[in-house]
């Protein structure tokens, strides 16, 4: 068999407190060298019921848990919209350097020049890549970047005494987009992407008005298609006094090819934990820098890193700023990783990354389209979206195919998103997968689709060789058990 998935020995592991025994402790604490200073018991707690483990228990617990997980280092992880590219080991080594790990955020500018310069330079590099005049590194994740961007748009209209109430969001948008709109006090106005899978100027024209603050566009969009009308759309929005927000989560398709600032997008967030190779960490932490045109620069969150005569400073005194978004300067440790990545790749490397990401996605698309249904059979960018139409006659769904892929040793793609495609099966291979791996994946999907016809049961029961089988999510939500 050619596919990587197989079964082997792994280990059960109870919950931490089931292992607890009174009197154990996995840290050794020195005798205090100062006198005990008891605090008035009025303030002190009576109990703190944490588990009591010794170091071996602790180490085994997390070693075993780790082995139940699938990471990029385990295999191909083609989650659409998530850009699960390889997370270079060197980035981790750089971020854990003693001085970078130890530097206190309030140590003072004069003593932390290296950290500030790194941030300043990273902003410049992200500017070079996106074309923006200014970049803030403060947002802690993509959605936080969206909030920052929407706040900037809000502040811009406020400053112009022209506050508006709505923001246009296409149906292909990621859920964070409409949620960010709401969080910023705007109403989210849907616009359909239409049968071409991309926005038309007409559709935008139809909803854009002078009470609309702007539009949020993801380009390439979540169908993996380039929004080729972006410039016209931007013109329409700008003509009515609106601004264009770009969700740059899909920047991995266009580095060195398109600069968002050049195509009418006024403000854009990036996901360093996608395009710039920082790890997802099982959910975070990420980082969501935001780039803006010079017109919007005054609204950037404080503090802003500035350079004056070779001295780097943090400027808090920016009257038009939307304010602060993070207690300190954002996710510095993640910034170090992205900075390391950009320096490692260089201009050509980043462009190649985008080129190969698109090559890989198109290769998958062409290889699979005889097997699965492809609702939009167009040249794609970094991802492509199939669905389960061909398998439905056999009562096999996208979910079944996804779960069966686990048995074959592949992480499934993103499923049931974007919403505009029913049963969508959204593949983003990224540039760091090799042709051989893509071929293996294609063979796995082909084999699974044959099984769908011949032996659908094996898909319905899938995954069959993972530590647990499908989980009862309904009961989980109905009677939530959120702690032990």
């Amino acid at each position, binding site marked *: 068999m050619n596919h990587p998935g197989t079964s082997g020995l792994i280990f059960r592991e109870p919950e931490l407190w089931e292992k607890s025994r009174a009197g154990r402790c996995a840290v050794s604490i020195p005798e205090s060298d100062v006198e005990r200073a008891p605090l008035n018991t009025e303030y002190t707690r009576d109990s703190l019921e944490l588990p009591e483990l010794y170091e071996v228990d602790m180490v085994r617990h997390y070693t075993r848990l780790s082995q139940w997980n699938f990471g990029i280092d385990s295999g191909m992880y083609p989650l659409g919209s998530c850009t699960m590219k390889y997370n270079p080991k060197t980035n981790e080594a750089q971020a854990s350097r003693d001085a970078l790990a130890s530097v206190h955020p*309030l140590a003072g500018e004069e003593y932390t020049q290296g950290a500030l310069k790194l941030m300043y330079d990273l902003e410049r590099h992200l500017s070079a890549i996106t074309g923006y005049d200014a970049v803030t590194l403060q947002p802690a994740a993509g959605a936080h970047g969206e909030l920052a961007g929407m706040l900037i748009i809000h502040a811009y209209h406020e400053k112009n005494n022209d506050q508006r109430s709505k923001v246009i969001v296409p149906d292909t948008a990621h859920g964070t987009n409409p949620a960010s709109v709401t969080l910023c006090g705007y109403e989210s106005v849907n616009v359909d992407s239409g049968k071409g899978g991309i926005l038309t100027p007409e559709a935008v024209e139809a909803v854009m008005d002078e009470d609309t603050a702007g539009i949020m566009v993801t380009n390439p969009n979540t169908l993996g298609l380039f929004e080729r009308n972006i410039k016209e759309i931007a013109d329409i929005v700008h003509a009515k006094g609106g601004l264009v927000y770009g969700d740059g989560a899909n920047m991995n398709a266009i580095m060195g090819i398109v600069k968002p600032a050049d195509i009418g997008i006024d403000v854009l967030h990036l996901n360093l934990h996608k395009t710039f190779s920082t790890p997802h960490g099982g959910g975070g932490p990420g980082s969501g820098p935001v780039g803006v045109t010079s017109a919007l620069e005054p609204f950037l969150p404080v503090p802003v890193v500035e350079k004056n005569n070779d001295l780097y400073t943090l400027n808090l005194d920016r009257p038009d700023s939307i304010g602060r978004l993070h207690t*300190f300067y954002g996710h510095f440790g993640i910034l170090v990783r992205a900075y390391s990545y950009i320096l490692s790749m260089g201009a050509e490397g980043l462009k190649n990354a985008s080129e190969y990401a698109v090559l890989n996605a198109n290769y998958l698309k062409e290889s699979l389209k005889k097997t699965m249904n492809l609702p939009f059979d167009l040249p794609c960018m970094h991802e492509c979206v199939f669905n389960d139409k061909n398998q439905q006659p056999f009562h096999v769904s996208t979910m079944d195919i996804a779960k069966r892929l686990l048995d074959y040793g592949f992480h499934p793609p993103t499923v049931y998103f974007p919403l505009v495609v029913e049963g969508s099966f959204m593949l983003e291979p990224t540039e760091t997968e090799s042709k051989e791996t893509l071929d293996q994946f294609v063979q796995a999907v082909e084999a699974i689709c044959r099984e769908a016809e011949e032996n659908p049961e094996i898909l319905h029961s899938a995954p069959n060789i993972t530590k*647990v089988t499908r989980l009862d999510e309904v009961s989980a939500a109905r009677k939530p058990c959120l702690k032990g």
Partner: protein
Amino acid sequence: MRYLPHTKEDIDSMLEKIGKPSIDSLFDSIPDQLKTNEPLDLPDALTEWELDEHMLGVEQSIIASGQCTYFIGAGSYDHYIPHAVKYLISRSEFMTAYTPYQPEVSQGTLQGIYEFQTMIAELTGMDVATASHYDCGTALAEALLIAVRKKKKKKVAVSSLIHPAHKQIINTYLAPGGYELLEIPYNEKGLTDFSKVPDDDIAAIAVQSPNFFGNIEPMELAKKACDDKKVFFVASFTEAMSLGLLKSPGSYGADLVAGEGQSLGLAKSFGGPGLGLLAGTNKQMRNLPGRLVGKTTDTNGDRGYVLTLATREQHIRREKASSNICSNNGLNALTAAMYLASAGKTGMREIAQQNHDKAVYLKGKLSEAGFTFPFDETPFFNEFIAKAPAGFAETRKRLIRDRCIYAGLDIGTYFPDLKDHYLFCATEKVKKEDMDNLALEVKSL
């Protein structure tokens, strides 16, 4: 480039399959006039060993290391991190996984976060803790947003002694919705003056304890003020270690708790990524933003864990979601869980107590060295405010430059009334000798 697998033959055969003549032609769907013509203006690519050298240079232009002495906290604390934790969290199965949307191959993350939620609920004394937030400031802002939405009020009252940056964050989050933050002044004890809660129609009272001055707030007064006003009691903390020793906010009746978990096994790392903690009573469960892990069973009846109550979240509810948060600080939550599992019941108590002991000793030493204490009688955990003798600012600079000793944070910028006042911190890492020496340095001024 070593991360890219594509050989010339690969590219050719893939293009052939696709039916395109060149890589460039893959981008034909992008109108030419939207494309950029120039190469990106970036420095030349560095090999790994050039990068190492470059980053060494970055390090050397920062005065910081594991051997420095940090008498400075203010939201970022210098605690000891066990080596076992560092090793375990580096395992790529944790590090390189995505959000556990496919629970069958994410049980490691899921059980780990479930255990995290459990331990944070215990630490804070609350019913439910989320799978993490960005940091304390953003968690606190979200907590207040819950309050204003639920209470349908436009204002919140916030202690003037919460972390100054948190005030700014709250303002940022509240502004576009037209909400307003009112400050509750502090009294001569360096504590929030709950007798001065504004009379306005508010949705919540927010208080941080230990507060920004390090002082332990009278939480029962906060609770009473909330009850009187029938508003949400929102509590926060920047020093998670304090909860090893202090009564939990939950025990005082908080409705929502926001906290910073950086102290639980995370490096200071110039302030981020830290770990936002967010917890609530059962009643608030469905109002909480962000992910929650729940326990359930699989088709064989075996125990397993899933992300749950997703109908609160943006990917299901879109514009009606309780927040826009998607990625959180999950790996740091797992680190904190490892830390809590390591220190455990007795370790957390002992480390917390040592923090307090050292801070008390430091205060005594500083007193000998001529510092005075505006809130001398007020109980504190591991931070306190001290007024410096003349000339201290220079000594402080010298200590940083020459010996990497960070002797307190000048809080004059945050509290203009408190010129020459410093916020001092002592953690378990600070040694008696360090404190004695600091006092000597100051005395010899």
